[in-house]
């Protein structure tokens, strides 16, 4: 009797496992609640757009369809994100995860759940440089660039403008610190001088002491690695008022319409860069999103579409939905050589792979994976002219 029970349990388990092959389940773990809750819906919609495109094509692994299972990463609560991911893997049987969004929880999910269970994770928006060196057994990728990359971009733009001395201030959190370290290291390597790198707290009424320190240290340009809705604008206001600086460099947290609304022509001649691309994929993706009923221009929505697409293309290339097998193929499908694949052409891509060809997925954000599997990063360079943001190029 005991043997019979064991045997039937085993058979049941086997059939259950067998049933999971069809359809393929992907987890979408994003901060549906918490600080990034305004971005999570369009990111999830982007990832699910890619999944439904593949399902409808019927070209994946002999006609397998793709299901999405959503879970909440909360953006800040590592324990909640870990538990939710655990449930997706052990309960829902997902074979890949699009997520998470914030760097902190992404790191926790990776080391606590994804690596022990051998599940591939592709984050569309975690930018902390710390994740580059994370212990991942080749399971972690991101379609967002590391802020280390932004450090290079900042240095390039400043050097091209002939700036050799900068003062640097950053918002006192993981994002600000990581970005500031990257900028400082790159700028010094390029022969520049960072006169001071000082943190500022968000949400203060008065930044005159901070600006006093920055001004005393001196520098041709003040780099403000903060948030435009927070202390970043306070610093710029105090610097302008006291006449300490009149030219600023704005990293991604500052470049927005709110910046020119706040300061207008007072910051004429300042410049900066934020993630963005002029690749035709971006426009195609925005049209697809509009048709699907959501706003494809929201930050990281395109990156989420690309993350889901990469997982599915890699499965096709591996001929298997087993993460330990298809993880090897993510870099291959993302990079040259091969036929370039834009959004909406996933069916073509799957077909080419099935016929033994090679693809180079460009996607909505012009994906190019470098190093340990993170986006090379495309940035939009802007200047402020006559109180308006003006795009001067892409790099």
């Amino acid at each position, binding site marked *: 009797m005991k043997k019979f029970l064991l045997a039937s349990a085993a058979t049941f388990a086997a059939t259950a496992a067998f049933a999971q092959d069809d359809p393929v389940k992907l987890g979408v773990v994003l901060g549906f609640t918490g600080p990034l809750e305004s971005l999570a819906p369009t990111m999830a919609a982007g990832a699910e757009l890619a999944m439904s495109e593949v399902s409808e094509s019927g070209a994946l692994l002999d006609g397998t369809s793709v299901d999405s299972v959503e879970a909440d990463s909360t953006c800040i609560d590592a324990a909640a994100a870990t538990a939710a991911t655990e449930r997706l893997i052990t309960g829902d049987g997902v074979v890949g995860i699009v997520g998470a969004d914030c760097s902190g929880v992404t790191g926790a999910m990776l080391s606590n759940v994804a690596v022990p269970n051998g599940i591939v994770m592709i984050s569309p928006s975690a930018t902390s440089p710390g994740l580059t060196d994370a212990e991942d057994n080749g399971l972690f990728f991101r379609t967002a660039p590391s802020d280390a990359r932004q450090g290079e971009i900042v240095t390039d733009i400043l050097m091209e403008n002939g700036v050799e001395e900068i003062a640097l201030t950053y918002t006192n959190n993981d994002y600000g610190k990581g970005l500031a370290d990257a900028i400082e290291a790159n700028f010094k390597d390029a022969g520049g001088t960072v006169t001071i790198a000082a943190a500022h707290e968000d*949400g203060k009424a008065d930044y005159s002491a901070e600006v006093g*320190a920055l001004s005393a*240290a*001196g520098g041709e340009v003040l780099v403000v690695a903060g948030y435009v809705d927070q202390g970043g604008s306070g610093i710029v206001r105090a610097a302008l008022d006291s*006449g300490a600086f009149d030219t600023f460099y704005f990293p991604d947290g500052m470049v927005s319409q709110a910046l020119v609304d706040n300061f207008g022509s007072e910051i004429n001649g300042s410049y900066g860069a934020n993630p963005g691309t002029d690749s035709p994929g971006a426009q195609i993706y925005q049209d697809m999103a509009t048709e699907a009923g959501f706003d494809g221009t929201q930050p990281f929505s395109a990156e989420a579409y690309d993350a889901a697409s990469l997982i599915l293309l890699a499965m096709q290339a591996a001929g298997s939905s087993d993460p330990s097998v298809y993880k090897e193929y993510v870099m291959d499908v993302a990079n040259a050589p091969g036929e370039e694949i834009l959004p909406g052409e996933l069916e073509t891509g799957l077909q080419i792979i099935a016929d033994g060809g090679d693809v180079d997925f460009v996607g909505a954000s012009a994906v190019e994976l470098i190093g340990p599997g993170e986006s090379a990063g495309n940035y939009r360079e802007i200047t402020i002219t006559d109180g308006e943001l003006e795009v001067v190029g892409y790099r």
Partner: protein
Amino acid sequence: MEPLNALVALTNFVIIPATAYGSQLALGALGVTLIYGILRFSNFAHGDTMALGTTAVILTTWGLQSAGINFGPLPTALLALPVGIAVCALLLLGTDRLVYRFYRAKKAVPVIFVIASLGVMFVYNGLTRFIIGPEDQRFADGERFLVSARGFREATGLDEALVIRTTQAITVVVAVIVVAILFWFLNRTRTGKSMRAYSDNEDLALLSGINPEKVVAYTWLIVAALATIAGTLYGLDKSFRPFTYFQLLLPIFAAAIVGGLGSPLGAIAGGFVIAFAEVTITYPLKAVLGYALPDGWEPDGLVQLLSTDYKFAVSFVILLIVLLFRPTGLFAGKSV
């Protein structure tokens, strides 16, 4: 060597901001010290009293602005001050009637008053957020600068700029006027003298026929005026956000205690000591020394005693030192 540039840099980044901040702290500390001297407790609700008074001023300012009334080059908020003070006074008198009078009748010990004021603080806290919300509010208008950076550079030809914002000038001028009136009131008028008598010795004052309820009511009225003016000046000069007013409680109490609790003169001195300490200790002297020292002597480092992150720690440290070595404060107030 360019001593003029050194002087201008020091004035621009240390002396002017610290003077304005010191005036705001001094007005706040005067309110705290009056309550301590006359009602004999530390009023933890003072920061939020300032926030509520300022809220009334902001709402009135917006009303005036939408009615097309302004104060020319000066901020409209100055016109709205009397309304704000009246609202704040009603609120404080109401709170006294509801909360503090009960404990006064029972002759409760000071610590009970302190805890009661803590409760009042939380209520005010919520009330402010309920009325105007937790976000930043901007209500400054009029001319922004008295002396602008570009104007100063063009006029003098110096490398360093000297900037005086209108709000900084107004802060100092208003603070001087308010302090002058307060001292005149306390020293020259009958009511002021009765308040000082009550503060010095409650029993003797009662025996000589001073009505305690009247003294208490006058105190709250003065405190309402001081708190609203201090809050409005701070909001005009910096920005209004309920949470920062709550945080102001620490430097304000530090100022009052450093000066000597219960001593009005001490509160003013304390306000400036705290403000100058916070600004000078975190200000890197590199630029100033670069100008002041002979060529080739310029320092390479920042010459900064403490990073600006530790700005708030400065008032804590001064508070500790004063409490350890001179518990009655600089001007020999009551020991705490």
